[in-house]
């Protein structure tokens, strides 16, 4: 198994938006979902998840409501808002452009310069 990687600065928001874009989740669920999609290769500080959730909700990209969890407990579920969906899209595009750019730079060989 690959070694766990630390999250790049500023990408947690995008991952959360992606996670809830697949359906409403509670905080713990979001954590599990990200770990699951990343095949446990990403390490997320659990404590930093909630401030990020609160910030995203404050900005109106996700919304929350209380519901019942699989283990029959009261849990706060987050879902993506319309604004959040647009945000996720632009963030993803930006990320891809940046990744392409970095890849291009890093892949440059001596002959190409």
């Amino acid at each position: 198994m690959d070694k766990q990687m630390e999250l790049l600065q500023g990408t947690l928001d995008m991952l959360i938006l992606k996670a809830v874009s697949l359906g409403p989740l509670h905080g713990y669920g979001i954590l599990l979902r990200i770990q699951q999609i990343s095949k446990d290769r990403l390490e997320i500080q659990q404590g930093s998840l909630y401030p990020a959730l609160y910030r995203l909700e404050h900005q109106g990209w996700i919304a929350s409501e209380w519901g019942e969890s699989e283990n029959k407990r009261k849990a706060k579920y987050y879902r993506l808002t319309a604004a959040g969906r647009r945000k996720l899209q632009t963030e993803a595009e930006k990320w891809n452009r940046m990744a392409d750019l970095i890849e291009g730079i890093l892949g440059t060989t001596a002959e190409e310069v």
Partner: protein
Amino acid sequence: MRAWNRFVSWLRAVTQRSRMEGEMDAELRFHIETFAEDLVRSGVPREEALRRARIEFGGIERAKEECRETRGVNHLEALAQDVRYGLRMLRKNPGFTAIAVFTLALGIGANTAIFSLINTVLLRPLPYKNADQLVTVWGYNRTRGFTTNLVSPLDFADWRSQNLVFEGMGASTDVTYTLTGTGEPALLIAYSFSSEYFHVLGVAPLLGRTFLPEEEEPGKNHVVVLSYSFWQNRFGRNPGIVGQGITLDGAPYTVVGVMPAGFKYPPRTELWTPLTAIPEAANHRDYRYLRVMARLKPGVTLQQAQTEMNTIAARLALAYPKTNKDEDLTNLIGLREIISGDIRPALLVLLSAVSFVLLIACANVANLLLSRAAGRRREVAVRAALGASRARLVRQFLTESMLLGLLGGAFGVSLASLCTRAMVTMFPPTIFNLNIPHVEQIPIDGWVLGFAAAVSLITGAVFGLVPALQAGANTNGSMKETSRGQAGGARGSRFRSALVVAELALSLILLTAAGLTLRSFVYLLRGNLGFNPEHVLTMRVLPPSSKYKTGAQLIEFSNRAVEQIQSIPGVKAAGTVTFLPLSGWQGSRSVALEGQAIPQNQRPMALWSSVTPDYFRAMGIPLLEGRFFGERDNQDAPGVAIISKSLARKIVPNADLLGKRTNVDGVKGAVEIVGVVGDVHHLGITLEMTSEIYLPFAQAPPPILCFAIRTEEDPYGVAKAAERAIWNVDKNQAIAFVMSMSQLAAESLAPQRVMMLMLGAFGGMALLMAAIGLYGVIANSVAQRTHEIGVRISLGARPGDVLKLVLGQGLGLVLIGVGIGLGGAFVLMRFVSSLLYGIRPTDPVTMGGAALVLAAVALLASYVPARRAMRVDPMVALRYE
């Protein structure tokens, strides 16, 4: 939309704090417990699972804190924390807090007081509907230089019917009535208003109504509208007053209305009667005695109205050249400007003075904070080490200084309310028309409180910013016990020295201003009024025309009253005059020698008065040539006059005037000049001497008699007897303004006196604060250099050398401060010049004196720490390493 979303979320966070906290707890608990359950499922023992879950989650409190922060709740929370902490710090240093708060209270208090005065005189809305549309309209006689000429009824009628710029125009004239039937007869200051006047002002009566147009006609005009204060004082606010009768000048009048409390126009008016034009005015266009008030139509500017009125005046001048040739202009002045009078320059000087005081206070407190910051380095370092960011520390320090500012502001407002009581004396109620606005009280209203709060906060930010930034910059400072010789020290003390130099310079400017006004006031006090105000009692009597219908009756009244008063023991001489000097009452007429062919409009103008023979002796006005009036100058004798020196010079320079005959406007036939007397400062000592012409009362008896009574002892000692003497002659005669001439003289200088006292107080405050500031800097530097001084002493320096060393540092600062201050004073004092009399704004003696006083006090302030330095024990200083 997003901003709204955030706002709602913030609002919810702030208002529903406990609910949010509960939800946050529940959410995190759910996370940890579910996590623990998963761990149990993977085989971890239950007890161990919860512990592991907590550890893996990380700092729960910290996560919560960050969550709160995302919603902005923390700002409020942090502010409350800062305030609590700041208050604790201030309580811990009561000495520092007391000095800082006291300094700020002086600075903010002085500013608040002056602002409350400016607010009262210049800013407070006038109690009239859309008061900025109200303008006073005056005649403008360029030839004579009369800029605010009264208006004749005929001109007024034409102005009103021909203009298109005013919504309405009203005319008024001042009148006096004697009220009888309710206790002692009282002289009432009243105004006659044309029926539209109240509508122009836009004020509705509290009770009843104002005047109807038909009430301007003779026979129907015995109606009266009362002012609120008159209604309150005389009728105990009787709600049934409308329809009742009162007796004015012995005739019955019916009360038709009462005006609301705020309404008193013109100031001091006690009641209003309808304006009935004097019969002579119906065919004399030069019968000018009306004051005109108009309301601009919406959208019309003062300039447009001025242009229109000038056109009308020019047209009238063409149509009636005989009376209006020189009246071809008008002068429109906004009501606000008329009401605030000449006080504006004085207020601006005071405002600059107090802003200097505040700047000095700021510099002083900044200095205090800086020297305290040195002692708080450890505290700052500890807090930084515990995770406080630089911004957080700066905010903490700023909160503290703003708290200081607010505390100072709170005390300052109390100081200001004391101060306003003193400032009211600037506006004595007995002085009329001396360009002093009428101010009965200077309220501390919402605007003033708002001003004080704003100044306090801004002040707090200004004096706190540099110390706060410096404290914040020290976060990487050491927690070591001793921190002598730190790198930042030199820069810090240079900044503090610069502050002190600024304080010294500003105080010198204030001291110069104070010195100039003081010397100018002394000049005015010593000035010769042209008469001797000591031991003279005055009182004013206006016999009503309803009772005194003929001149003969007035003459008889005056003869008997003067005779009775002269027989009172302790009275040396008594006489009457129409217009008492310094009273603000005056009348002027044109004068020309008989036979001189000078057109009416170019004849010299002189203030006139009718006097009884002993008036000059009672006032102490010197006779220069000829004789005073005597008993023989009666109704049947040939007309005579006495003129003042400057009028004599104006009529015929360098010639003997005695025996020459002169024409006086309003007097039939020429009168013979029998005497020349000295000039008097009729309009107040701050204004030019005036030319005067005096007529014998027995030959020209106006219904105004101001008594002047020269006494041997205290003039007030004969006041009661003098009043009784007049009531012996006529028991229904009102007597007003019983006061000594010296009191009148003092009151006519009231604005100058208050100005001098205030600038003196501000200069003193500035001096004190600058001295404290200098003391602080020198004492601090001595404390820092204890080690160095110890070394010097142990190497053989004598106490005198140490004294020189320290005093030299102080002297250096003082010299720089005095240099800058003198330059500043030289430039700035010209703005004070309009308030000065008999002294140049750059008077070298005053400037040098102020500089000497400042230098002496400043050297004293540095001498105290210098003596301490002298006594440094080298052993102690060196051991203290």
